[in-house]
């Protein structure tokens, strides 16, 4: 089963459809994205070039089953197709965040949150606390919160 994202005029993903593998085989029996695009154009009345194949098992530029990641992330409705870098970007979580091309994710301008201390991790494991860093857009910093308090 193959998956294709339907791309809108502004590059946003409008929908994601599945396609039978047999519907994207070329004359030699090889899987070809363009054949799938033509099939989708014919049956869904939307231009072939605005159907982009996406990988169900790719997330944050990693393949869940150990294969080769494909186009950054599995496309979802509201994602943006980056034609130049061949990446499906999730919606930007905060206006100050920037693209991390190596992981196909967004990151804060000061990077990822600090690691939890060993004490905080043990408290999370013991379920007495639930320590978590949340992004504070106003102060442009990570703030540590106990969600179990």
């Amino acid at each position, binding site marked *: 089963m193959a998956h294709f994202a339907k791309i809108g*005029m502004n590059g*946003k993903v*409008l929908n994601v459809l599945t396609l039978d593998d047999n519907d994207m085989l070329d004359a030699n029996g090889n899987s070809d994205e363009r054949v799938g695009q033509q099939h989708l154009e014919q049956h*869904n*009345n*939307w231009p072939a070039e605005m159907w982009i194949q996406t990988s169900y098992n790719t997330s944050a530029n990693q393949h869940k089953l150990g294969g080769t990641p494909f186009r950054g992330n599995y496309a979802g409705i509201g994602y943006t197709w980056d034609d130049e870098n061949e990446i499906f970007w999730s919606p930007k979580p905060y206006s100050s965040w920037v693209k991390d091309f190596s992981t196909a994710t967004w990151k804060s301008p000061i990077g990822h949150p600090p690691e939890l201390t060993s004490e905080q991790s043990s408290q999370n494991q013991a379920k007495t606390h639930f320590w978590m860093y949340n992004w504070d857009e106003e102060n442009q910093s990570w703030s540590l919160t106990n969600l179990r308090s």
Partner: protein
Amino acid sequence: MKKKVLSEQALYWGNVSMPKGFEIDTGKLSEDILHSSFTNKEFPYSKTWNMLNTYIIEHIGLKYNLSLTNKNSWGSIYKPNQISKSLFNANLMDLYNSPDFTLLYGVKVNNCFVEIHYDDNRRKGKSWNIELKNNEFIMFPSTNVFTISNEQKENLNFIQTIVYEYI
């Protein structure tokens, strides 16, 4: 201080920007409207209608996170200088099966205006007037009464109505 919006009467409008070569075939839609109007038959669902419906569902869903499913559709013709009677697509005796939204699409229109009536708390009987243009849509709650007027004296106006419920 906090605020919670308990109810909303929102109006959505815009044009149907299909990719080049895949534009809505308004000739086909107006033919279907004519045919269904004069034969008194149900509006025929077609590839063109489906393209319009899919566009609306997908774009409203993407932009406003509103998941719509269509309940019914029909076409209407308005003669020059005709003003419709008051229209209302919800059934007060059967609200469970009534649609949530009414969408009007300008198939072939000229000087076509839609007047939507609403109450704003104790301020009753207010209305909003908006022009419906070719290849544009207006969507509003089906519980709002509205009228459609063809404010010119030469051409028929063709309008496609689709009613939706949200899920």
